[in-house]
């Protein structure tokens, strides 16, 4: 079962993991990404392409289901303005085997970073703004699953 949500509101990663694990399997892997600040960052503004987002995330989740024996996948991605320390994204996977759950979770995050239509703008403490640029390390991570 695939559950995909794009919302501004925060989420409770433990409650989401509990809900997912009710589908079966004893191994639940979760990843949470948060707004990380270096002191100059005030907030992130997260934009997405609504008509495409769920389609793109569902495609990633379906590919994960093809590759690993999973009971379910939960993806939650927040949009709008998020302050430093706030949660941005949750990926949670559930399987009989811990390697399957962990690898699938890692795969989904790597793919999400490169093909899900979200864009981050940094709002700095001095009021200036700049769009975050893609990172080669994310592209490399996504490609590493191809072989």
């Amino acid at each position, binding site marked *: 079962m695939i559950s995909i949500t794009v919302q501004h509101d925060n989420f409770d990663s433990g409650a989401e993991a509990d809900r997912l694990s009710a589908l079966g399997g004893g191994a639940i892997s979760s990843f949470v*990404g948060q707004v990380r600040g270096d002191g100059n960052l005030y907030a992130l503004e997260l*934009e*997405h*392409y609504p*008509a495409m987002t769920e389609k793109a995330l569902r495609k990633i989740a379906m590919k994960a289901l093809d590759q690993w024996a999973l009971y379910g996948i939960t993806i939650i991605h927040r949009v709008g303005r998020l302050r430093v320390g706030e949660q*941005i*994204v949750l990926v949670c996977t559930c399987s009989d085997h811990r390697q399957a759950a962990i690898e699938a979770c890692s795969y989904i995050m790597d793919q999400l970073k*490169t093909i899900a*239509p979200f864009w981050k703008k940094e709002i700095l403490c001095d009021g200036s703004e700049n769009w975050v640029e*893609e990172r080669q390390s994310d592209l490399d991570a996504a490609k590493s699953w191809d072989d």
Partner: protein
Amino acid sequence: MANQLSIVYFSWVRERIGRDQDTINCPENAETIGQLLDYLKTKDTVYQDLFADLKKLRFALDQDFVGLEAPLGSAKELAIFPPVTGG
């Protein structure tokens, strides 16, 4: 009759264009995304600037990532945006 196409913009592409979206009539001789971009450049200098470095842009046709050589076919929506940075 020419195919109507919505073009939607995101992130700094949207800011640079100054609009969320446009609706255009595709010219008959624009069969691929690359050819459509060439046509748009003749219409507005903002496109000339934007399409000067295509390596910084990504394209989705009817919500699927595509390359410049992709045929427009009867697609309804072209999205133009920078590389994604979610997660």
